C-alpha cells in the first residue's frame, strides 16, 4: 500500500522528466544539424568557389564584384579546355602519375615486408625498431629538405623526377609501416600457428595468409601513400626548378600564377584538376581512407 502510494507520488515527476528528456533530445538534434550545416557551408565554400571561378570567363571575373562573385552567370569550360590542351600542364600530370605510382609501389613493398617482420616475427630489437619507425614519422619533411637538397644534389638528381622518387618514401614509409604493424598485430596468433602446422614457410604465410587477411589495412596504407605522394609540396618546391620535371602541385602553384590578374579562372581550374585524383579516391574508398587515418593514432 505504502509502496503504491509512493509510486503515485513519483508519477508526475517521472512524466515531467520524460517530457523534458524528449525536449532535450529534440533540442540536441536540432543544434547538431544547425552546427553541421554551418560547418559544411564553411568547409565546402572554398572548393565550391574555386569551381565557380574555374567556370567563369576572364571578363566575368574582372566584373564579378559588380554582381555576385558566388555565382556563375555564363558558365564556360574554356579554362579546362585550355589546360588540357596545354602540353606543359599535361606534363605536370604525367610527372605526378609517374612519381606517385613508383613511390606507392616501393612504399608498399618496403612497409609490408618490414611490418610483417617487426609485428609477427619478433626478433632481437624488433620492439625498439618499431618505436624507431614511429619516431621517424614524427620528423617532418621541412626539417630534412635542406640536407636532402645537398644529398640529392650530390647524386645529380636535383631537378629530376627520380630525385623525388628517392626522397618521397621518407614521407610515406614510416606511417605505412606503422599502420601495417597495427593491422598485422590485430590478426590472432593462432592463425600463424595454424599455418605453421599446416606447413607454410614465412613467405607463404605472409603471401597466402597475412596479406589477404590484412587487405583492408593494405588498401588504407596504399591510399595514404598515394595521397601523400600526390600532395607532396616541400620536396618538389625545393628540388625541381624546370617546368618539364614538375609534378602537379608545384606546377600549378608556380607556373599558372601570372602577373595577369585575369588568369584566375585557369588557375582555379588547374588547382581543381590537380586535386581531382585524391578526391576521386576519397569518394570511392572513403571508409578505407578514414580507417587509415584513424589507425595511426588509435593503434598507437
Amino acid at each position, binding site marked *: 500500500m505504502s509502496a503504491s502510494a509512493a509510486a503515485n507520488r513519483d508519477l508526475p515527476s517521472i512524466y515531467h522528466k520524460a517530457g523534458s528528456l524528449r525536449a532535450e533530445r529534440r533540442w540536441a538534434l536540432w543544434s547538431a544539424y544547425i552546427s553541421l550545416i554551418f560547418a559544411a557551408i564553411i568547409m565546402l565554400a572554398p572548393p565550391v568557389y574555386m569551381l565557380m571561378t574555374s567556370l567563369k570567363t576572364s571578363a566575368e571575373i574582372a566584373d564579378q564584384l559588380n554582381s555576385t562573385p558566388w555565382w556563375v552567370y555564363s558558365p564556360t569550360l574554356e579554362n579546362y579546355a585550355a589546360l588540357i590542351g596545354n602540353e606543359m600542364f599535361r606534363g605536370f600530370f604525367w610527372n605526378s602519375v609517374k612519381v606517385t605510382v613508383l613511390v606507392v609501389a616501393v612504399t608498399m613493398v618496403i612497409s609490408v615486408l618490414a611490418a610483417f617482420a617487426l609485428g609477427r616475427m619478433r626478433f632481437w630489437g624488433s620492439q625498439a625498431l618499431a618505436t624507431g619507425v614511429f619516431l621517424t614519422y614524427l620528423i617532418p619533411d621541412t626539417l630534412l629538405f635542406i640536407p636532402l637538397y645537398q644529398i640529392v644534389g650530390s647524386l645529380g638528381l636535383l631537378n629530376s623526377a627520380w630525385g623525388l622518387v628517392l626522397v618521397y618514401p621518407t614521407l610515406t614509409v614510416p606511417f605505412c609501416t606503422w599502420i601495417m604493424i597495427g593491422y598485422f598485430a590485430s590478426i*590472432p596468433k*593462432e*592463425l600463424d*600457428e*595454424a*599455418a*605453421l*602446422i*599446416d*606447413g*607454410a614457410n614465412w613467405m*607463404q604465410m605472409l603471401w*597466402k*595468409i597475412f596479406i*589477404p*587477411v590484412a*587487405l583492408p589495412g593494405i588498401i588504407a596504407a596504399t591510399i595514404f601513400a598515394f595521397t601523400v605522394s600526390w600532395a607532396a609540396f616541400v620536396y618538389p618546391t625545393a628540388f625541381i626548378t624546370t617546368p618539364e620535371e614538375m609534378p602537379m602541385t608545384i606546377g600549378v602553384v608556380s607556373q599558372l600564377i601570372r602577373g595577369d590578374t585575369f588568369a584566375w579562372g585557369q588557375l582555379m581550374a588547374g588547382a581543381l584538376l590537380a586535386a581531382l585524383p585524391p578526391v576521386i579516391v576519397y569518394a570511392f574508398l572513403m571508409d578505407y581512407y578514414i580507417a587509415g587515418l584513424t589507425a595511426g593514432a588509435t593503434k598507437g
Partner: protein
Amino acid sequence: MAQVSIRKVVKAYEGGVQAVKGIDLEIADHEFVVLVGPSGCGKSTTLRMIAGLEEITSGEIAIGGTVVNDIPPRDRDIAMVFQNYALYPHMSVFDNMAFGLTLRKFPKDEIKRRVDNAARILDITPLLDRKPKALSGGQRQRVAMGRAIVRDPKVFLFDEPLSNLDAKLRVQMRTEIKKVHQAVKTTTVYVTHDQVEAMTLADRVVVMNHGVIEQVGPPQELYHRPVTRFVAGFIGSPAMNFIPARVENGSGALRLNLPNGIVLPVPADRTQRYAAAAGKEMIFGIRPEHLTEPKNLDRDNIATFDLTPEVIEPMGMETLVHLWLQGAEVCSRIDPTTPAEPGRPLQVAADLNHMHLIDPQTGRVL
C-alpha cells in the same frame, strides 16, 4: 598413427618461471588422452610443446618413436584444433581444409577426395564453398576439425576447442569429437579446463596442477580413487565435500570426530588403511551423491545425522542442498521428492563405503 612419449619435460620461461616442471607421460597409439586442470597449470604449454609451437627447455618428446624436440611443427606430422578455430578468414571452407595439403603439394584429385571424405564425416559437405564468416560457431568448429582430419596426421592436438561454444552446442560437439575419434582412431591429445569434457571424452585423463601431473588414469578411476586432494576436488561436480575431522582410536575401531559433534564410525575394512592417521587432524572427503536423504539404511556403513539446510537448489532430477556445518560448506544431493526447506533440520545419510580421508599436510588421499 603413433604413440607420444613425454619424458621429464620442463618448460621454463625467461626469469626462471617454470610452467611445466618435469612431467612424464606415455600416450598409446589410438588413445584419446585429455589434459585437464585449472588455467595456468601447464596443460596448454605441454600441448604446444608437442606441437612444436614452444621450445622444450629440457627433457624430450617423441612422436611415433622419433624424438621431435628439434623438428619444426610442419615436419612433426601433427594437426591442431585451436580454441578460436584459427580458420583462414579469406578462404572458403574447402580451401581452409585443403591448405595444408596444397602446401605439401598433394595432387588435386587426392586433395578433393580427402576433403570430401572429411566433409562427409563431419556433415559439412553443403558448406564447402562458404567463407568462415558465414558459419556458426559449431560449423566453424567442424571445419577446424576437418582441417585436422584431411591431413591424416599421426596425432591430433586439441587446445580447448569447445570453450567458445555455448553450453548446448558444447555437449553436441563433444559427442561429435568422440564419434570422429572412433571413426579415424588417430592418437589424440586434448586440452581442457572442463572436467566434464575430460571425463566424457577421455580414454585416460591427465590431471595437471602447477606444472606437475597430479594423477593419470581412466575417468572412473579418477572419480572413485583420486590420489590427491586436488584431484578429488577437481573431478566431479558439485565438488567433493571436505570436512575437517579428527581420527580417534576406540577399542580396535576408528572414529571420525566431525564439527557439530558428529561422530562417524570408519568402516571396518578401512581400519588397517587409516591406522596411521589415528589421533591426527585429517580431512574427511565425501561426494554429494554419497550424502543423501536416508536410504539403503540396511546396508553396512551408512551413518545418519542431522544438518540444517541453508540453500536449496532444485535441479529437476535431483536437488542440491547446501548444509551448514561449522568450518565447512557441505553439499548434499537428495531426491527431489524429499521435503527440505531452509532452516529446518534435515536428516542425511552418509555412505561411508565411498568416503576418503586426506592428509592435510601432504594433500594425499590415504
